[in-house]
């Protein structure tokens, strides 16, 4: 049962990701990415990361990708013409590079020394592993300063986004 859920979620996640990069229409691409992210959230929940899995659906699929959709609608790309297809050699070499990277990962994972006692560790995990309370306790004690620094990062990002996307007035347009 467990392994069936894993395979279904993994195939959906990978298939939707492949469809995402093959789409011409960016809106369809965003929708495929949402499908892929929800399948990845299933994998997260299977790994008992309940809080982070919920966060993935809410923050990524719900907020960030809606932002992408807004920008696509705002840009009005209907008349956008992309140059004709690149030569076959160019595309084939790029795909070969990606496949080689994947093979490197596979070799890395195969050669990696997994600790022998991993199965014991799995058995003794507490029942609320990955729940809201234990993660929040870690976040507000051990990782308090990184968490607070995140707020500064988000503030800088907001200010930067507003300044960059602002329409410059003609008399102060020196940036």
């Amino acid at each position, binding site marked *: 049962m467990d392994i069936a859920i894993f395979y279904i979620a993994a195939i959906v996640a990978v298939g939707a990701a492949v469809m995402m990069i093959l789409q011409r229409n960016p809106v369809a691409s965003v929708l495929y*990415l949402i499908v892929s*992210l929800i399948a990845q959230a299933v994998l997260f929940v299977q*790994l008992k990361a309940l809080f982070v899995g919920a966060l993935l659906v809410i923050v990524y699929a719900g907020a960030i990708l809606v932002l992408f959709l807004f920008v696509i609608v705002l840009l009005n790309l209907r008349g956008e013409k992309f140059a004709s297809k690149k030569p076959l050699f160019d595309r084939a070499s790029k795909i070969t590079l990606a496949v080689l990277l994947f093979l490197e990962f596979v070799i890395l994972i195969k050669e990696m020394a997994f600790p022998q006692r991993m199965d014991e560790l799995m058995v003794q995990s507490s029942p609320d592993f990955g729940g809201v309370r234990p993660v929040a306790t870690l976040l507000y004690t051990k*990782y308090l300063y990184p968490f607070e620094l995140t707020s500064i990062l988000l503030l800088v990002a907001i200010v930067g986004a507003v300044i960059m996307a602002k329409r410059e007035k003609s008399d102060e347009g020196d940036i």
Partner: protein
Amino acid sequence: MVPMPHYLIVSALLFSIGIAGVILSRNLIIMFMSIELMLNSANLAIITFSRFLNLMDGHVFVFLVMAVAAAEAAVGLALIITIFRNRGTIDADKFNLLKW
């Protein structure tokens, strides 16, 4: 119970697809979404290790990575809007001012 390498292989596959999307696509928005996909595949690997080592610290790291991804999305989309306003296109092949 699904063995650990299975999850890592899925993560590696998603990362490679993200790389392929960045180097193959000419649409800036699709390139940007591929970067988001790569960030998420790294998250999947972190969550896998955190589960199999029985340490919850990985969940906090994923939380922080999501915050970075949100900040990156906001700034990147603002950049795309500015580029589109100045050049009238988001075709990555047409931005060749720095090409020698």
